[in-house]
């Protein structure tokens, strides 16, 4: 075992950094993907990154509030997905196979 590994126990910071990276990937995903469904997924990634942060911080702070918050966030995420998918379904019915870039009649 090299000393780095042995010395290293993942601290809260590690989790936070991981969460930040995940959040960043999610954000980049929203920017680069054109399929609205995949964009939603990326938003889910971002929310999960936040959840991860909350949980890690809750542990570090010794406060259950962070975990409770994650619980609520999950509810919100679920609700968002439901509604978001609803919107997509109603759009896709009208325009099957449209990408996010195609849906740009309103501009200027």
């Amino acid at each position: 075992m090299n000393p780095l590994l042995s010395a290293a126990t993942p601290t809260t910071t590690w989790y936070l950094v991981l969460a930040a990276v995940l959040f960043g990937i999610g954000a980049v995903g929203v920017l680069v993907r054109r399929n609205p469904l995949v964009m939603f997924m990326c938003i889910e990634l971002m929310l999960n990154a936040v959840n991860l942060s909350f949980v890690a911080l809750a542990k570090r702070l010794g406060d259950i509030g962070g975990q409770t918050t994650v619980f609520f966030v999950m509810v919100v995420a679920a609700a968002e997905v439901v509604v978001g998918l609803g919107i997509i379904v109603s759009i896709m019915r009208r325009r099957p196979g449209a990408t996010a870039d195609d849906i740009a009649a309103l501009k200027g």
Partner: protein
Amino acid sequence: MPPIDYPAIDWLAVSPMIVVLVGALVLLVVGSLTRMWPRSLYALVTVAVVVPAVILEMVLWNRVGHEGPVSIVDDALSIDRLTLFAWIGITVAVGLVALSTSEYLRREELDGPETYAMYLAAAIGAMVMASANDFVVMFLGLETLSIALYVLAASHRRRAESQESGLKYFVLGGFASAFFLYGIALLYGSTGTTNLSGMGEFLRGQVFLDGDDAMLLAGLALLLVGLGFKIAAVPFHFWTPDVYQGAPTPTTSFMASIGKFAAFAAMLRVLLVALPTRADDWRPVVWVMAIASVVIGSILAVAQTDVKRMLAYSSISHAGFILIGVEAAGHSGDTAGLPSALLYLMLYSVLVVGTFTVISLVSRTGDGRTDLASFRGLSKERPALALAMTVFLFAQAGMPVTSGFIAKFGVIKAAADNQSYAVAIVAMVASVIAAVLYLRIMISMWLSDAETGDETREKVAVPFTSAIVILAAVIFTIVAGVFPGWLIDASRDALAVVR
């Protein structure tokens, strides 16, 4: 296992929300179980729900005056005059929007109880946002409002634009919510609480060593992103024109009035209750956002040809004005900023509902005729409607004797009170630029000659319920412009927030 120590609930304090919630559920349940209700009844029921809510809010206003502000449900909600001011504004606006929606839905063949239930549910979200003393609660309120608005924006199923706006709003809203939430997480990490007043207290007692507050500030930054998105401030405004234009017009007015009111109330609370100690950090950001909003909103508005879109940009500019008040409120010892922002919101809400109600009538069947040409000849066809629109537009431009002037005056005064003269001047000059767009609409209504094809257009119908809304808004706009004293005093009373 120790028993759960349920928090005591001050039922009177939450009664307005309960009334609204009950209204929403009644509409939903009874409405979906029965056949189509008679014309306008859904809207009238909504109004009937709103009226007692407003009354209760006034009772609470009085109570808070006597007993002082309280925080209830384990500090999750603050019942102070900031809350109540916002609540009154929100509920009144809901009533007005509901009334103006009634005939719209009939015309567009979308009638049903769901829209009204959605309004009321969204109103609860908005009320929660305005009163939340906990970030989690605020986030949930925000999401309730937002999700309802996503749905409402996309709810005109015959219009592709409506669905497009719903999708855009949803994607960007979700994106911004994630930032907002991340901001909450980082603040939580730095302070150990999600409670606003708790956070404020903690920060007051905390001395940060070098760099220790970096996470706090990063959280603050992300929080401002979320809030900036909701209030539609530059540079988070990109959704606004598209969504305002595409959404069904009553929904647009809902967003512009209630949405903005709730978001600003939440913003004020976050910044002034949780983070007043970091005012030196956020004030410059708000300053930049304010200036950028007034200027860019105005400039972009000038280049438009669609009235709804113009007003969307102008709402960005108005948001900038309100941000000036917020910025002023960030100065230590300031007593003018918060009241001016609230006053602006109250006056603007009514104004914007009136404006969009007119637009919803002019947009004619299909809700598509919102370009400038559609307003051509309105003064001949419907002089009273054109006159009302003129009042609204002048008010938005900040002409005296209308509420718009009082609103701007208050904000400018707040800025001047804190020596932010540059902001004040930039804002006033930008409002001149914005005046161009109001003038353009008026030119269409009053000064343009009829063109071929105009006479074959569908005539603009002015149904009774919408007329009531417009009349009420006009009266309020002028009365508040001439006798604004009571509103100013009320907004000033809101200074005593739960800290």
